[in-house]
């Protein structure tokens, strides 16, 4: 084993600390507020550490060396950027959550899960190989599932959690298949060792499978519907998982695999189309919604669509645009979620149209909201605008048209959230806003502005290491070109839309489709059950027998070549014992009374014990003898008092059952004969014979196998025995309780 963690050790130690703090919050909810501040500090420290760790640092621990599977992490330009987003946003979210969740019943659990999510997400973005990436990816899905469904007594929360998990989980399975194909083609899981696979014949399949995973995770059409439903989670969760970090995992995956798959013919058509459709669908969703968080979820879907479309272009400029826009998006969307949470905190309102008059009482909140809305509208001296301008420059005309249609709807949302809630007379009964909830959006807004004014610093520190040098310097001063024209047009149309239209809260087609698929699955399952599992239970036995017969018959038909063992006539003792077993079995079938059936059954078992003895298996003989005696005793105890056995079935039914039984038994015997004809199949006995003495110090090879070589299997056997004993006890313990009651 070769552990090499030296250079990433500080980060791993901090991650463990975050997990411990999260666990402490879950166990002691009373101190969750303080722990949340602690977590904010830890994640800030982690962001600093990520920023300072040199690029190319790598750590790995072997896991399954035979398949070259390991746990490994590394810091590349891309993982540094995403790591900073994860830990940086983590800082703000934990600070905000400390106060926001103070009176929340499940605050401890929520903070703990957020910490677990942060570490999982860090695993995704720092993963240096596909297996680690997949495992961390699934961990984020699990924590997301738990966080969405945290208010588990509400049906809608449970449904949203299951929906998100089913969609992202199914996508992840497709992605895993894609990863395995990459391994088969490239021969390695390590991201830094996979060559460019673009020209390999199976690459279109890989692209399709991996794209499915990314699309499900990043809420792309047709999977976009899970994200608005996920808004059931508390606001800090939505701000962190469902806008800033987890939903960007799909974009991260595509950026990671872009150098490997990006030149494939399938890449651009799939991703550009899906991304543009998502940008449109998300914008429409946001424009139609009135619920604050659904509006924001829709705009998030739209932004994710833009990012996926740009990654699909597989161009240096487009990739640079994705990264700048992604940073800008985190800053403004995180702030918007916190502003929305503050609206609800102040007034208890969740609908945008019911808010008004908050501007005079909360001027700083309004200011932070205005800066954030600039990002959403894609205009003004903010980082998101810089990114959007570059994106428009990188986009071909067809994509630009799609974006020009989507943008006005986003502008309309920004307009509605920027002015209506703040104008008008101050409402009565508004609560004062704590500093811990006001500062995070204000600081995020300040960062958004700072980034807007100094995009070149961000570019040379964070973007260039990913896309390589040679990209034109970004600037907040727009050039007079088609991109600016599109932006200005979108601004005008958007404001007009905001003034002229009202949200309709329409249920999207995709959401309805998901609902009907789930309903169809339920109905089909029920009808399959009704036809195959007919009542009474007893009749299903025949189905089982017939299915087993069919399977065996197909097996023999598929490979009719059979090596017959050479059969000999038995010796006299064996023949006598066989007669005993045969007679016992037949007598059991035709037994007129219970007690005679039990006795016949016992004769069969005793005959079997004798047979084992004759055939060189004294251990089996002893065990069989003991078990048989105890079985007969228990049978008699349970059934001695019951009457004669009657015949319930008609003669023809009994004949049918007998034929079915004989046919299956015949096939099983045939199976036995076909294996014994091949003595070369059993070679493991030699190993145990040779090693029984040196390794297990026992002469009886059967015993050494049972208690030494396969001791774990024996432990399993004992567990089965114990479980059966527990079952029996519980059955009769209950009957005793009934008697006491009576």
């Amino acid at each position, binding site marked *: 084993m070769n552990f090499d963690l030296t250079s990433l050790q500080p980060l791993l130690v901090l991650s463990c600390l975050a997990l411990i703090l999260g666990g402490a919050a879950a166990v002691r909810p009373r101190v969750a507020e303080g722990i949340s501040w602690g977590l904010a500090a830890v994640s800030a420290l982690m962001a600093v550490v990520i920023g300072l760790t040199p690029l190319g640092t790598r750590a790995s621990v072997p896991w399954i060396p035979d398949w070259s599977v390991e746990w490994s992490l590394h810091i590349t330009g891309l993982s540094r950027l995403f790591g900073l987003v994860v830990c940086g946003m983590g800082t703000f979210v934990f600070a905000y959550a400390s106060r926001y969740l103070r009176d929340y019943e499940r605050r401890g659990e929520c903070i703990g899960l957020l910490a677990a999510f942060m570490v999982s997400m860090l695993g995704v973005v720092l993963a240096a190989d596909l297996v680690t990436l997949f495992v961390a990816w699934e961990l984020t899905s699990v924590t997301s599932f738990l966080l969405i469904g945290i208010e588990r007594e509400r049906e809608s929360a449970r449904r949203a959690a299951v929906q998100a998990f089913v969609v992202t989980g199914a996508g992840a399975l497709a992605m895993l298949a894609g990863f395995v194909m990459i391994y088969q083609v490239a021969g390695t899981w390590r991201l830094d060792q996979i060559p460019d696979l673009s020209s390999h014949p199976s690459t279109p399949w890989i692209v399709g499978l991996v794209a499915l995973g990314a699309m499900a995770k990043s809420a792309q059409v047709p999977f976009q519907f899970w994200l608005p439903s996920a808004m059931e989670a508390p606001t800090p969760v939505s701000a962190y998982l469902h806008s800033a970090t987890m939903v960007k995992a799909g974009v991260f995956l595509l950026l990671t695999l872009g150098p490997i798959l990006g030149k494939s013919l399938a890449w651009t058509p799939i991703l550009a189309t899906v991304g543009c459709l998502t940008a449109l669908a998300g914008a429409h969703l946001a424009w139609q919604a009135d619920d604050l968080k659904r509006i924001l979820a829709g705009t998030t879907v739209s932004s994710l669509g833009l990012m996926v479309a740009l990654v699909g272009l597989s161009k240096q400029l487009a990739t640079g645009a994705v990264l700048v826009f992604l940073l800008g998006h985190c800053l403004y969307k995180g702030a918007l979620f916190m502003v929305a949470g503050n609206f609800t905190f102040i007034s208890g309102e969740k609908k945008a149209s019911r808010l008004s008059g908050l501007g005079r009482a909360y001027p700083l909140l309004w200011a932070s909201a205005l800066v954030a809305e600039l990002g959403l509208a894609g205009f003004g001296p903010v980082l998101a605008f810089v990114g959007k301008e570059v994106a428009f420059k990188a986009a071909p005309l067809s994509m630009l048209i799609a974006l020009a249609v989507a943008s006005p709807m986003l502008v309309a949302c920004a307009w509605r959230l920027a002015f209506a809630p703040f104008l008008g007379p101050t409402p009565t009964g508004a609560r004062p806003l704590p500093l811990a909830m006001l500062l995070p959006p204000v600081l995020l807004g300040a960062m958004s502005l700072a980034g807007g004014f100094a995009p070149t610093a961000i570019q040379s520190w964070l973007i260039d290491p990913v896309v390589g040098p040679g990209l034109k310097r970004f600037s907040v001063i727009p050039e007079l070109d088609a991109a600016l024209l599109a932006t200005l047009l979108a601004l005008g149309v958007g404001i007009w839309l905001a003034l002229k239209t009202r949200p309709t809260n329409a249920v999207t087609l995709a959401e309805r489709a998901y609902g009907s698929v789930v309903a169809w699955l339920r109905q089909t399952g029920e009808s399959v059950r009704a036809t195959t599992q007919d009542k009474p239970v007893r009749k299903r036995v025949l189905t089982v027998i017939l299915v087993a017969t069919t399977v065996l018959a197909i097996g023999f038909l598929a490979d009719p070549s059979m090596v017959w063992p050479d059969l000999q006539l038995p010796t006299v003792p064996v023949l006598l014992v066989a007669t005993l077993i045969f007679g016992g079995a037949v007598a059991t079938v035709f037994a007129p009374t219970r007690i005679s059936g039990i006795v016949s059954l016992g004769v069969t078992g005793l005959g079997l014990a004798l047979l084992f003895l004759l055939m060189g298996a004294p251990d089996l003989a002893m065990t069989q003898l003991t078990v048989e005696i105890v079985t007969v005793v228990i049978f008699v105890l349970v059934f001695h008092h019951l009457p004669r056995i009657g015949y319930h079935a008609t003669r023809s039914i009994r004949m049918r059952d007998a034929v079915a039984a004989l046919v299956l038994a015949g096939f099983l015997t045939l199976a036995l004969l076909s294996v014994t004809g091949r003595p070369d199949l059993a070679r493991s*006995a030699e190993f145990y014979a040779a090693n029984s003495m040196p390794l297990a110090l026992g002469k009886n*090879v059967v015993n050494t196998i049972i208690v030494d070589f396969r001791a774990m299997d024996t432990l399993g056997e004992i567990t089965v025995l114990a479980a059966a004993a527990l079952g029996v006890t519980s059955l009769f313990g209950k009957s005793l309780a009934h008697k006491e009651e009576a």
Partner: protein
Amino acid sequence: MTIVLPALVLVLFASGLFLIQRHTVVKVLFGIVLIGNAANLLVFSSAGMRLAAPPILEGKDYAMPPGASDPVAQALVLTAIVISFALTVLALALARRLSQSMGDDDLDKIDEEAEL
């Protein structure tokens, strides 16, 4: 190998499979036990069906006696005997509870009553 073993496997399986399709609870239980015996015999015989010495090492060099039976199949069956015993006892307990609470031993009638 002797022809007796496959014949016995056939008879035990056929009787067991016939019995588990019966109405009477106790017959189904007989069937379960017989199928267990049949399966154990099948696994045991599959390792080469002949009269043999037990797989116990002999002499100073701890060698397997010539023509000893296969210890792996025996270990498997040893485990299987114990597990089928556990299964039988649990099934017996269930049957006992069933006849206590339903007062009938015809599985079809019990099903009908349970429906009501």
